[in-house]
Structure formats: structure tokens, C-alpha cells
């Protein structure tokens, strides 16, 4: 397996979060490229590199950058999405705690490309300790004069999962309730206080310096044709060595789990994997044998790569309780704006609790699927469709366990 450390290069170094270590290891070197490329050229490089958003959606980042106006009389903003709340996902905190200067470097390059003078990092409320590391790195950068032309403000969220959705994130940053906005009918930037704004995930921004330094082709040399580059894949659950390990796209899932994770914990057999954060459909061990870690492969078996944060479940896992665990989370975290999600998440949680308590009926299982259908594609954001996917994937792949539990 080829070693590829694009974002995680400095993670293992001692005091890697300090400016001193960053600078000693080529940090901020790419800032000189700003003199070489115009903002538009930089956007073209990102488009050319096929960098895809690493927050879960996997949309082409460069195309999103290109939507930002190059000559607007309104100020442009960059909002870096560090509201990492997806269960099973913990890669962004690795970046902000182990190499915050890489993120700052990426922010400076991105702001240059989209002509923004101010970037916000929206950080998850629970990441208080990492916020301290990030903030001291920003303070160091200010002192060193690195942030003379561009400001960075860290904005701490209040702990709502939905604020990771980009429009809810901006609503929250504007001081309102974190409710996703109605989607625009045409392609356009996001809007922060009515100003054009780019929202990107931490890891996406942290990948930018490598691409600008080494060129689009160097980045594309990793991964598959459609899923270019690398991702900070992560493992949690019943795996020997859980953690975050960077790898290129396209390697086999089992190979990744065995190579980096040391296989299933205590030598047990694998039962199921949730491939990319809780909101992607669960897959069976058999499917895990066949898939590769890229957007297309997982999509083809009816799941998604998401954030690449794999939740590994061994043979002893009760799938009904696993689903109950997830649904409790969604029940708690639905923002409550759209009816299907607000009422649906509570209802499915109660129904699975009923099944778990041996009071369920066969109709309850069908009712779960029916509610999942109502929740799919009928709301403002993708929260409810995700819950729907989770329910359907669990019942479709492990229906016998649900029926046994009745």
C-alpha cells in the first residue's frame, strides 16, 4: 500500500501545532505562490485537481469556488466548516489540533482565490480544548505577520449537529437559530449577512496547500479517476487500532481496516460497517469485502462514502440496538424545522425502542419503512433523508434480526 500523507504529514511531529515546527517543515511556503498565480488561475488549479469537498458530500470544491464573484462590491467571506459532529467522524479535530498552521495556510490561499479578506472557522461547541490550540496557532500567525492581509475569526457553535449543514452554519454564525435555509434554484454562493460566502470543510481547505505547491496532477496521481486524492479515513468501534489514517481513495475497505486498524478487535468476525459517518447506510461484512474506499464504489452498493469515518461492528453487535443508538442521536439533533423530520425522528426512535423492548409487531417494522419513505426527499435539508437511508439500510440488510427481536 502506497503511503500518502498530504494532510497528515506533520501529525506525528512533536509540537506540530506550533508555528516554529510548522515553519521548520515547509509550512507557509506556498504563500509565495500568490505572486505567481492570479486568483482565477488558482481556482482553475483546484478545479483541475478534482478536489472534492471532504465534509461528506463530495461535491467538486473548485466549482464551488468558481461561483464566488471576482469583482463584487460586497465583501466575500470564507466560512470553514469545523462543526464536526457526525458520529464516527473525528478527522477535522486531528487537523486543528495537530497541524492548525496547515489549515491557516489553506485559508490564506483560498481567501486569495475567492478575494475574501475575512475567514471564519465555525468550530463545534464541544471542541473547546481543540479550539484553544487552534486559537493559539492563529494568535502566533497574527504575531508573525502572516495574517496581515486576511483576518481569521474562530466562531464556536453551541452544540447542534445541524449547524454542520452549510446554510444552518451561516444562520448560526449570523446569530440566529441553526436552521437550514431553503435551497436556491440556481447555482450560487452561500450568503453570510447577504454577502457571497464560500463554505468548505476543514480538510478540504487543508488539502489546498499541497495542490497549489505540487500542481493538480500531483494530487490527481492519488486516488481513482473520479475520486482524486486522499482522505483522512477514520475507524472506530470494534477494531484493534481505531484512529485517523490518511489514505488515497480507491483502496479496498478490508485492506484499509486490516492494514491501518489491525483487523477486528479480539479476533472476532466483522458483521457490518457504517462506511462514512452515521448518516451513511450500513453495509454487511460481505459487501465490505467487495467495496473500495471511493465515492463511486460505495454509491453503487446503495451506501455512501460520506466523511470516511467508518464505524466497525463485530459479530456480537445487536443491529436493533445499534439502530436505536443512532436514532436516539437523530431524535435529539433534528432541528425541528420541517414536519417530517421533527415528528418523524421522534416516532422512529419510539418505534425501535418498542421493538427493542420486545413489544414490537411486524407492522411496526413496515411502519418504520413507511415513515422512512415520508422522511426521504421531502424536507429542506438532507438530515431527514439521511435518517431515512439509515433506517432502510438497517432493515433491508438485517431484517431477520429485527423480526427476531419482536
Amino acid at each position: 500500500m502506497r503511503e500518502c500523507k498530504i494532510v497528515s504529514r506533520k501529525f506525528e511531529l512533536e509540537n506540530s501545532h506550533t508555528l516554529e515546527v510548522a515553519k521548520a517543515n515547509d509550512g507557509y511556503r506556498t504563500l509565495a505562490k500568490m505572486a505567481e498565480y492570479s486568483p482565477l488561475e488558482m481556482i482553475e488549479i483546484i478545479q483541475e485537481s478534482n478536489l472534492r469537498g471532504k465534509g461528506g458530500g463530495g461535491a467538486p470544491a473548485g466549482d464551488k469556488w468558481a461561483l464566488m464573484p471576482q469583482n463584487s462590491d460586497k465583501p466575500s467571506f470564507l466560512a470553514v466548516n469545523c462543526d464536526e459532529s457526525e458520529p464516527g467522524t473525528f478527522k477535522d479535530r486531528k487537523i486543528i489540533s495537530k497541524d492548525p498552521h496547515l489549515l491557516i495556510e489553506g485559508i490564506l490561499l483560498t481567501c486569495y482565490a475567492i478575494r475574501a479578506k475575512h475567514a471564519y472557522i465555525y468550530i463545534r461547541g464541544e471542541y473547546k480544548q481543540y479550539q484553544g490550540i487552534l486559537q493559539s496557532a492563529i494568535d502566533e500567525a497574527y504575531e508573525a505577520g502572516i495574517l496581515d492581509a486576511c483576518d481569521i475569526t474562530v466562531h464556536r457553535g453551541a452544540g447542534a449537529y445541524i449547524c454542520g449543514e452549510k446554510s444552518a452554519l451561516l444562520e448560526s454564525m449570523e446569530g440566529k437559530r441553526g436552521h437550514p435555509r431553503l435551497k436556491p434554484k440556481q447555482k450560487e454562493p452561500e450568503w453570510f449577512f447577504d454577502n457571497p460566502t464560500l463554505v468548505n470543510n476543514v480538510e478540504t481547505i487543508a488539502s489546498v496547500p499541497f495542490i497549489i505547491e505540487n500542481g493538480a496532477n500531483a494530487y490527481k496521481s492519488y486516488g481513482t479517476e473520479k475520486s482524486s486524492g486522499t482522505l483522512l479515513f477514520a475507524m472506530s468501534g470494534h477494531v484493534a487500532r481505531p484512529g485517523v489514517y490518511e489514505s488515497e481513495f480507491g483502496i479496498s475497505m478490508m485492506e484499509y481496516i486490516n492494514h491501518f486498524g489491525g483487523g477486528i478487535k479480539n479476533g472476532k468476525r466483522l458483521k457490518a460497517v457504517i462506511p462514512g459517518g452515521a448518516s451513511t447506510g450500513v453495509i454487511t461484512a460481505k459487501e465490505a469485502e467487495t467495496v473500495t474506499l471511493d465515492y463511486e464504489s460505495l454509491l453503487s452498493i446503495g451506501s455512501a462514502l460520506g466523511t470516511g469515518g467508518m464505524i466497525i461492528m463485530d459479530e456480537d453487535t445487536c443491529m436493533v440496538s445499534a439502530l436505536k443508538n443512532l436514532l436516539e442521536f437523530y431524535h435529539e439533533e433534528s432541528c425541528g424545522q420541517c414536519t417530517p423530520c421533527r415528528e418523524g425522528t421522534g416516532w422512529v426512535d419510539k418505534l425501535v425502542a418498542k421493538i427493542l423492548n420486545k413489544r414490537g409487531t411486524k407492522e411496526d417494522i413496515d411502519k418504520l419503512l413507511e415513515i422512512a419513505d415520508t422522511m426521504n426527499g421531502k424536507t429542506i435539508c438532507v438530515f431527514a433523508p439521511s435518517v431515512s437511508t439509515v433506517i432502510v439500510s438497517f432493515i433491508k440488510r438485517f431484517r431477520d434480526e429485527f423480526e427476531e427481536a419482536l
Partner: protein
Amino acid sequence: MSEIVEVIVDKRSYNAEKGSLLIDLLIKEKIKVPYFCYHEALGADGNCRMCMVEIEGQKRPQIACDTFVKEGMEVHSTGENIEKVRTNILELELINHPVDCPTCDQAGECSLQDFYMDYGLHDSKIAIPEKVKGLKKVDLGSNVMLDQERCVLCARCTRFTDKITHTHELGIIGRGDHARVSTMPGRKLDNPYAMNVVDLCPVGALTSKDFRFAQRVWFLQTVDSICHGCAKGCNIYIDHNKIKYQDDVIYRFRPRRNDDVNGFFICDEGRLSYKNLQENRQETTLLNGNEISEDEAIQEAMNFMQKYENNITIVIDANLFTEEIDAILEFAKNINAKVCSPLAVYIDENFKDDMLKSSNRAANSKTVERLNINTNEPNLSGMIINFNHPQTFKSEEQIHFLTHARNEQGLIFPIAAFTENAGTLTNEDSITQKCEKAVDKNSPAPTILAYLQKVQV
């Protein structure tokens, strides 16, 4: 003018402005579409997800309140698919609803009830102990009571305080199925238009303290009228009912939509002005405080008019209907009396705001001005005949025609209030509007016109 395009809804063709909201077209053309959160005054919020329609070329059903009209758009608002979607979403809306319609004031004018009759008609599939509980009576302030369990979280009320009054008292707190409407910490709902949230609320979550438990709405009769609180001329509905063996009573005023005048709303003071109309009424005919019969009083009035011939001043209330003012002017000509209608007394700068309230608190002063009636104070020598003008004048002799009892000397006749009579008014923007007769009292006071026919000289 924007471009008008053709849209096909359920195989029929309609014209609509390009880029306008599809739901506006459906509402205008009376095509049945269920919705809670959309309101023409508040715009789209897209949270209730009830107004789903199918649009040709779109994979999934779309909400009509977030769909913009395009040339040749083909919409299906009926059919098995769309009705199933609406039924399923309505079912979710209802799982935590307390279904306490028998004690709910909204019953009979509740969107949830209406849509249940259209799309639901199923039994609740969630056991009652599992329903999310909330507070049943929260006094939000300004006569508005909140029942959190009945709320469908459409956010109309919060959007009203955000977008219309800009007072921001209301918000939604909590997430998921525990989200609920509340006032901001340490605040009360407190603005002069607050009670409009009761009308905006599509269900029984927000009810008026003033109207709660007073009447079942299906017993009420509704009449179109105009508020007499100021010169704005806000359009209202008068809801009244005559219970057997009792008198005809007004239970509430509600705003009636008129985009040229008041839009969708009225102020709370105007809304509650129905109470004064029914209290402390002048009910008997009096001569210097002693009750006399109407016939005697009319005879007395004629004697007075003869005695003070050519020395009579008529004072007109600028709230009277135009028809009444016309008749009074005719009468004045016949008896050779001077006429005036002092308007200064109606001016109240403290009442004025930049929404609907006008500092001119006379509903028909525009007509007084149009007819060139003298607006100065009357001459106090001789006799004054006062047609309900609010000022007291110390003249030698006085005849009063009053809706409400007050301390006056001379001859006093009771007259009908505007709710007991029909007529027209012209508001401060020169818009002439009609009030219909609402109340039919058991012993009605005569109208001014009826008196003037009797008192012919």
C-alpha cells in the same frame, strides 16, 4: 409589468406572473392545497411541507410555496401519489397533537381539522403516553395564550414579530419534537398588533384571552364592517351571535383582508373596541335626567326648535355614516340651523404609529371635509343639537342624540351604534367603504335617519 406566462395545473391552463410563487396561484384560483406555514403577508418558510405538488420533470414532489412559476410548467395538485404524501406528512403532524378539539377554541376554524377531513381520517398510531407533552396554558402577554401541545411549529407567529412588527418577542426554543414557541427570556409579547398572531395561528395553539371559551365559532355570524377606531378604516369582520332568549352580542372583531387599506391586520385597540360598543349604552329617552317617552321627547324637541328658531347650531360627530351626515345637512337646511363638526378633538398624536394607526381618530372626517362642514367650535348662544359628537358644549338649551350614556343636560335620545346600522365611510386616504348591519338588538335604539323622519318641522 412582469411577464405573464401560462401554467398548467391539473390539465387546466392558468396565467400567472413569471417568477411568482406557485402557491399564490393555487390560492388565488381556489385550487385545494393544504398549508400551515405559508402566509401571504409573511412569505414562504417551507417548514410544514404540506403544500406538496407534483411538477412534470421533477423527480420528487415539491412544495408549492418554494416553487417559482415558469413558462409551460405542468403541475399536478391531485392524484394518488400526492395525496399519499400529504396524508403521510399530516399523520406526522398529528402524532404529537393532543386532539383536544372539544375544548379547543380553534375547533371549527382549524386548518389541522380541515386537512384531517381532506387527507387524514385515520386513528392515531401513537399511544397517548408516548406523546410529547408541553405546557397547556402559557400567558404570552397582550391577551395571547399559548398551548404548546397544539402547536404545529409553522413559525407564523415568530415571523410576524420578526417581519411585521419588528419587535422580536417570540421565538422557537428547543429542537426536534421538543421545539416550542416561547417568548424571549425576560420578555412578554408586547406590541400594539400582538393579537394578530391569534388569527395567524392555523391551529389552536395561540388563542385570544378575550375570546377563549366565549363561543363555539360555528355559532357565530360574520358580517363585513369597518373599524371606527381611527381614520384608517381597517376592514374587519364582526362575529356576533344571538343566543335564544338573550340579546345579540358581538364576540370579536377580526381583520378582513384589504390590500389597499390594512392588508391582513388590525391593531389590538381596534380589535378590542367592540367591548366599548356594548357597554354603557344610552338606552332611554331623557329630559334633564328624567325618563320620558319617545313621543313626548319628540314633541319637546319640536317645541325647543320653534323656541330657538334661527338660533340653532347642529354639531356632527365625524364618525357618523355619510348617509347620516347627508340627512343631517338636509335637516339643518330645513330648520335653518348652522352646522359644525369640530375635528380638533379627534386628533391624538400618541395613538399614531407607522403601521396602521392614524392620529386622526374620526372614521369619517374625510366626508366632513368634503362637504365643507365648518370644523370650528359652535357658537354657544341659542340651542345646540348634538349628533353624538364627543365634546360637551355649555349652550342655553341642548338636544343630544347619543350612542353612549354621558352626563349631559337637556333632551337626550338614544341612537344605534354603527354595528346596529349600515352605511358608508370615507377613510383618510379617500377610500369609501361600506359597513353592513351586524347586530339586531332585542330593543334596538332608532337610527338617526329614523328620528329625522319623525322630527319634521
